[in-house]
């Protein structure tokens, strides 16, 4: 199969307009004949569900939490970008597009990113109309802050809870449609598989997480908005429930997976402090606006930070990148922190942390201003670490945060399975090899509010609107397979807990496929993964039964998929022999240890096709053409 990204012709700025015009329409009377399944109720899922229901489609929305208000989008702190140029500082749609493409180290599609920048403004309008309480200036106008990877202030925010407020806005729109009877909301349901009939996505199989009942659901189209796979590392800033299962099962049913090795490591997280630790907590990147990153100049300096004099501190980001300073993109900031720690200059009990210091900002702006800006973040930091950043520098370290890779989609956000659409973090489309801060919220909402409502019609108009039900034997077959897998898991009766094996997998991936990667390490991981998988299927312990709320079983199912998926990540990382964005291949670096891209050989999306268990996935290449920007070696100096 040849990958057709279906990017419209014409000048960049007109592509989306032209495409919207060319998209086939479903007339209003026919829309109510179409059923759409949306899996996931984060920003992308909730906004898509609401918008599709508003158009008249019948929507069934699924989430694995007890309420659709809890998707992990809720945890995004810093903000959402838009090219409003309210600050008159030279922002424009083109600049947002350019920053995003450059921030992604020229590994994203121009047309998708431009569309994202175009609709960014509509998102802010929409959210304000829903009652999202964005921060405001005294005059009542919207406030903006700046963020890493950009030199303009274009980030809209609601304190440190922007993701929460945007999600609650989308959730309220969703619940409004539930009231109208246009959305059927099914909570505490985990998608176990997608049902493909005659090459088209026709439904899903879910497990009712309370009763354990395996259910089948039919529809004319299936939309996956199931988030990222950062939890493959065990420790990440993702929610505990975030998983790759939906995307992975779709992959195994014929959806291609793109750039699985692109994982963003966020530079400002609270350092790891114990083996029992279950997750890592991110401190908003906005902290880098006023916080200065430093380490002691002398390796092994164990004095408390306040006792280290100014001339013995190395403000390494400011020194190395004078023009962006502490606001370099995430991948650069993360890698530099690792580099400092590798040189023995890391701080804290583990030596795996750097300081983020607010003392200068506090003496410049006063503690009142800093408290207003970051009070809730400081509070959160203090709760976890028992240290107050007003009095001593924060300690931070990079942590797995976001996955740019995901299911491959075309310009319509449709995967290689016709009728299966993928939105938000679950797809690969807009961030290239590195995502800029405050762009995830933008993409989730762009996909859900302003892209899928048009592009899904283009697909539905080509298929029959005859009612769908689950009577086709494919539903029974897929449901039986899902049930059999659960039975298999419960029958293992081994000795190790799911978390033990997950932790082992995570450590391996962090060491070999984390912040920096090399051939040898990746090969080792590739050799080691089957053994861990084997250990899992021979020796995992899952108490309880399948006919009840069984959290061990839920986790086991997810880890089983992570164990398979990890291999694809490593294979992808091996095949991309260049460094780009988050993907730092030690073999490919400049003399100054910066990432060195190889546009001649790697200016493409790596797309993987499932060819059966035990077989190597088939590699496909989607070449990336840059007609409007000139790929350059990123420089934030």
């Amino acid at each position, binding site marked *: 199969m040849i990958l057709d990204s279906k990017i419209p012709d014409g000048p960049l700025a007109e592509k989306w307009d032209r495409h919207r015009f060319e998209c086939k329409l479903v007339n209003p009377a026919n829309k109510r004949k179409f059923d759409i399944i949306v899996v996931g109720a984060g920003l992308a899922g909730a906004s898509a569900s609401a918008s599709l229901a508003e158009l008249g489609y019948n929507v069934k929305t699924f989430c694995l939490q007890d309420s659709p208000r809890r998707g992990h989008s809720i945890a995004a702190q810093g903000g959402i970008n838009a090219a*409003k140029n309210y600050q008159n500082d030279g922002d424009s749609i083109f600049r947002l597009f350019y920053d995003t493409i450059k921030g992604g180290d020229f590994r994203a599609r121009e047309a998708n990113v431009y569309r994202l920048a175009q609709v960014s403004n509509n998102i802010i*309008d929409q959210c304000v109309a829903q009652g999202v309480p964005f921060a405001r200036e005294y005059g009542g106008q919207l406030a903006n802050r700046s963020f890493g990877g950009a030199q303009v202030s274009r980030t809209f925010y609601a304190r440190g809870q922007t993701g929460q407020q945007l999600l609650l806005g989308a959730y309220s729109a969703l619940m409004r449609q539930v009231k109208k009877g246009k959305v059927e909301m099914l909570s505490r349901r985990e998608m176990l598989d997608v049902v493909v009939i005659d090459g088209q996505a026709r439904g899903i199989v879910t497990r009712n997480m309370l009763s354990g009942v395996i259910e089948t659901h039919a529809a004319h189209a299936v939309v996956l908005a199931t988030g990222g796979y950062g939890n493959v590392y065990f420790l990440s800033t993702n929610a505990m429930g975030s998983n790759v299962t939906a995307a992975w099962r779709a992959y195994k049913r014929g959806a291609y997976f793109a750039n699985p090795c692109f994982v963003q490591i966020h530079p400002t997280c609270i350092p790891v402090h114990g083996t029992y630790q279950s997750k890592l907590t991110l401190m908003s990147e906005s902290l880098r606006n006023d916080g200065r990153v430093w380490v002691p100049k002398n390796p092994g300096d164990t004095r408390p930070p306040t006792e280290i004099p100014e001339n013995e501190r190395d403000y390494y980001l400011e020194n190395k990148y004078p023009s962006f300073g502490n606001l370099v993109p995430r991948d650069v900031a993360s890698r530099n922190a690792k580099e400092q720690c590798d040189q023995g200059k890391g701080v804290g009990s583990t030596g795996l942390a750097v300081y983020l210091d607010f003392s200068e900002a506090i003496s410049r702006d006063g503690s009142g201003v800093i408290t207003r800006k970051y009070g809730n973040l400081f509070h959160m930091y203090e709760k976890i670490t028992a240290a107050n950043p007003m009095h001593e520098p924060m300690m931070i370290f990079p942590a797995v945060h976001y996955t740019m890779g995901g299911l491959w989609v075309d310009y319509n956000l449709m995967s290689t399975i016709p009728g299966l659409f993928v939105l938000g973090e679950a797809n690969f489309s807009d961030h290239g090899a590195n995502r800029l801060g405050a762009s995830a919220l933008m993409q989730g909402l762009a996909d859900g509010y302003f892209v899928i409502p048009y592009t899904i019609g283009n697909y539905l108009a080509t298929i029959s609107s005859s009612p769908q039900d689950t009577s086709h034997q494919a539903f029974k077959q897929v449901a039986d397979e899902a049930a059999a897998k659960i039975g298999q898991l419960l029958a293992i009766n081994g000795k190790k807990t799911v978390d*033990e094996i997950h932790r082992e997998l995570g450590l391996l991936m962090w060491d070999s496929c984390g912040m920096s990667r090399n051939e040898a390490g990746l090969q080792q991981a590739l050799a080691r993964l089957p053994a861990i998988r084997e250990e899992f299927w021979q020796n995992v312990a899952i*108490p309880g039964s399948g006919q009840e709320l069984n959290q061990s079983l839920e986790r086991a199912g997810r880890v089983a998929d992570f164990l398979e998926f990890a291999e694809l990540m490593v294979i992808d990382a091996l095949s991309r022999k260049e460094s780009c964005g988050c993907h730092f291949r030690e073999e490919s670096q400049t003399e100054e240890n910066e990432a060195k891209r190889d546009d001649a050989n790697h200016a493409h999306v790596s797309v993987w096709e499932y060819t059966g268990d035990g077989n190597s996935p088939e590699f496909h290449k989607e070449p990336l053409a840059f007609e409007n920007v000139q790929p350059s070696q990123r420089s934030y100096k």
Partner: protein
Amino acid sequence: MSDIQLTLKIWRQEGPDAPGRFQSYASGPISTDMSFLEMLDVLNERLTGEGAEPVAFDHDCREGICGMCGAVVNGHSHGPEKETTLCQLHMRHFNDGDTLVIEPFRARAFRIEKDLVVDRSGLDKMITAGGFVSVNTGGAPDANAIPIPQKNAEEAMDAAACIGCGACVAACPNASAMLFVAAKVSHLSLLPQGHPERARRALDMVSEMDELGFGNCSNERECEAACPKGISIRNIARLNREFLKAAIFSDED
């Protein structure tokens, strides 16, 4: 960092209709840097190893924002620390030898599903009743078209910070959901976008709350004290105002 040992008395209940009971566990050594849920993880790992059923509890983000976790610890919703969710509660706040009684949020409107897991779908139902602005995607005016005084935006944000965890209901002596409803009604009545539907919203959300079997507010202020986001009962006064205005003066019925 140091280790402490605790006695955990945890509510175990197999299903909604099964009888529940407390079961005691020795915690084993617990690092004071652990979060409360990590302490439960450690217990569950051990139970799993022993072939016993781990304790079921809801949780997801573990950074205090998704609102999924929550239990009553020694009579306190989300434990004894102020403005802290259970996942953000750290074991350094407990002492060696303490006994912790851990029970689920209890209310008629919150059915117990298993152990510490409860059904809070009532909260969603109240939002469904009217906790939204009726605006379709597209066609919104420019975001800066209607200026909103900073103070109003901030106050709306104070109310909108609700994470929907249900601790207010759990802590209320009457299992009332007034703080939850009040937070949403306040958030939207403080912003011009919410004004066209404010009367309808207040009436519908309160009537849904009553139907779901939550109790009546008696201004005990326990909800405010238990709220992990510090949402003020001032919002309840505002809800009362909005409701009475709607019930007595508006054309809505």
